[in-house]
């Protein structure tokens, strides 16, 4: 299943909410946490990361990966955290609304 336009940024922010991660780990995490439903083209992750960096929502730093290799890590800035909660609640509302519309009306099932 492909991602909806603009949702990748939100997913990246959400992934980073639990701590810093490098690009590959972010991609992995999104796939796993969406129960493999969402297929992130790993390549599209990088423009998204650059966009978030530019907007000051995340920061990049060099660090050591689990298998002791040098990699570039990303983490949330305070603004990124704010943005995440804002966007997340918007999504919540949005998906609830969509859910209401798509769900069969209760009186009809009765």
């Amino acid at each position, binding site marked *: 299943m492909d991602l909806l336009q603009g949702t990748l940024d939100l997913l990246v922010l959400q992934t980073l909410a639990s701590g810093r991660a*490098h*690009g*590959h780990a972010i*991609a992995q995490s999104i796939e796993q946490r969406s129960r493999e439903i969402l297929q992130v*083209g*790993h*390549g*599209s*992750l*990088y*423009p998204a*990361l*650059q*966009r978030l960096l*530019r907007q000051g929502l995340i920061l990049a730093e060099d660090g050591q*990966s689990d*298998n002791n*290799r040098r*990699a*570039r890590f990303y983490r949330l800035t305070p603004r990124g955290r704010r943005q995440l909660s804002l966007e997340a609640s918007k999504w919540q509302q949005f998906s609830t609304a969509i859910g209401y519309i798509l769900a069969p009306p209760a009186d009809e099932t009765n």
Partner: protein
Amino acid sequence: MTWWKRRSDRLDDEIQKHIEFEIEQNVAAGMSAAEARSAALKKFGNVSLAKEESREIWGWLWLERLWQDVVYGLRGLAHSPGFTVVALLSLMLGIGASTALFSVVYGVLIAPYPYQKPNEIWAPAIVSPKEPSNGWRQYPRREFPAIQKLPGVATAMATTYEPTLLTGDGSPESFYGVLVTGNAFEFLGVKPLVGRTIQPFDVRPDGTPEPVVVLNYQFWQRIFNGDADAIGKKLILNDVPRTVVGVMPPRFGWFTDDSFWMPMSVDLTDETPLNVIVRLQPGVSKEVVEQQLQGLNLRLAAEKPQDFPKGGFRTSLLNYMDITVASGAMKSSLHLLLVAVGFLLLIACVNVANLQLARTTARAREIAVRLSVGASRPRLVRQLLTESVLLSVLGGALGVLFAIAATRAIAALMPDFYKPNEARITMNIYVLLFSLGVSLLTGILFGLTPALRCSRPDLAGTLKDGGRGSVGSAGGQKVRGWLVAAEVALSVILLAGASLAIRSFSQLTRIDPGFQPQKTLMVNVPLPPKRYATLERRNRFARSLLEGVSVLPGVEAAALGNGGMPFGGPRSAYSIDGQLRKEDGRIVVGFISNDYPRTLGIPLKRGRTLTAEEVADGTHVALINQTAAKLWSRGENPLGRRIRLDLLNKPGGSQLLIPAGSTSDITVVGILGDTTNAGLREATLPAVYVPYTLLAPPTRVLAVRTFGDPLSVLNAVRQKLRDLDKDQPLARPITLEQILGFQTVQPRFNMALFSCFAALGLALAAIGIYSVISYGVAQRMHEIGVRMALGARRGDVLVIVLRMVAKVAAVGLAIGLCGSIALERVVRFQVFAAASFDFAALAGVVLVLSVVALLAAWLPARRAAGLDPVTALRHEA
């Protein structure tokens, strides 16, 4: 861009790692290496697209914001076209004028020479308390080795002129050839364009020079059409074939800009005066070498006391940078103009400051609104900054265009002989950057500070206030008032300076030179000294020429002369019968033919003029001018009295020939009217005129008074010369009016530039007044409405507005007048010869400024007076 590259490399590396991680994971999950790799790549997708999109984001976001700011800024500027035009105009004039003038100063004063380290070249001079500086001291050729050997002197070089006749294929032409010592080009450190320069080996061990010549660029272009084949060709110079060994680059004009350089002989018996320059030994101070030169000078003074000031002297070294042709009057007037143009730049900056201040204060409400709806402060500041920078950059661009045009105009206006022939006047990039920087800073400082102040938290106050004049903006109005007063003061000073320059010029043009400059042609007749080696030959040639020219059609009168043609001339020590000899007294000597007074139009005051026979025979009779007549005591009649001129039997210099057994006594037979013989601005010097046959220099000046256009007889005169000697050219034809014109070009230059700067300054100040008053009116609109509602009439409103102007203008005028008077004391003696302020000039300045101030305030005042009270009361912001 390295940071861009670094970032790009880092992204590549990151993506590379990403894929590696994926491959490792796949391998760990049990795939083969090849499968793992292709699966990883498939999962990642298009690698280069990912990179490209990432990079696009870097550039795009950055550019997009800038673009937004620029568009917003441009829209803002377009929204208030009045502000924009005025600010741009101010910047253009300020930046352009200062850059242009400084470029000229840089070209002619700061970097006039192409020589190596010209500021380390020194020229000896003699200073005596009685005779003010004699300038660059010349030394006889035989003394040159002695100067070279002074312990503090690292190297010395010497230069002299020689009238040189070029003969051969083309028509004969005369030049001033330049003779230099063998080390000259090494000393100056300039490389040739083609071939080689003169070298020490061009002077043989016995002191005689090799027959070689190095060409000036102009000469090479003209005679050889710039052909490199010129090297090795022969030129017949003063009957000697010389081999061309090199050509100098266009920007090299040591002592000539149209001839050539030849090696000078080393001759320990030669008395020819040389111009000597030295470079000092490293670590040796100028004072030490001055002492050493003083020793040499004292010895020379013991040998030839007449060549040195009588009351003692000391030796000083002049830096070569200080003896350019642009030094002296031109230097001080350029410095003064630099100050003037600095004022202009200041006025322009004040204007921009003022406009920015008024504008940002007026936008306080807009800024507050934007902040309150959530604009971030840094973003707002960046926007305002972009706008200021945008304005300055646009103004700067216009300034560059203006500077290019103005540099050309000033350079064209500047008299040629004040420009060192090696100077290159081009727009100076550093100055341009400087004035751009200054105006940029002004714009930012005054555009941003008020913006920052009003972006502070008290939004509610600003919003409620509606820009109707809170405490803060009243303060702003005060600052603006002072700024305008400063502008007015600066323009008063500029106007006062301009009035001085104009007065100085008009005084000069009203001076009666004492002769009639109209319809008179002057030409030089340079005889090759070796062809005309005797006094008799030179005099015979002169006489035949004079007789031939006098009878040409269209010629009223003709005269030969050296000295008094019409300025300058040799000066001689003298003594008058029956008087004590004044040791340091000097008199100008003119060697003339009988028609000299008629040709130059100088009236005879007493006695008679010289007769043709007296001149031909070389009788010892003389005319004197009125100033010289005062050398005799009051009541004494100089006519028939004798005066002794040392020059007549001791002319000095091997080129000046005198009759055998010539005595120095001479009898006065007539008194001529005074002429301004030392230049228009100088006092007349005592002068004595004697028959030209008493002294024969190689070159004489021929003056021809004509009935019609003086230049129309030029060809006939040239032909007359050819008839007498087919190889004899004439040099430097010019009219007497042109010579007189040279005397006024420099004051004219001052006047033109000063008036120009003053007019610009005045215009800028007027704009400043206008902007501040109209802003003040807008600010007080509500108040004016209230007053009108309470019964104030149009006249009352006019008075309110005019009072605002009067306050500002009066303060500015007062400061400006004090400043002008203080400055005038400083500059009067340096630049504007005799002119000084008078009441009329200052009153004129005050009047001009008041009228301009009133005019500038008239529009806003009328607008205020024409207001409908209801509209005014409703007016917000």
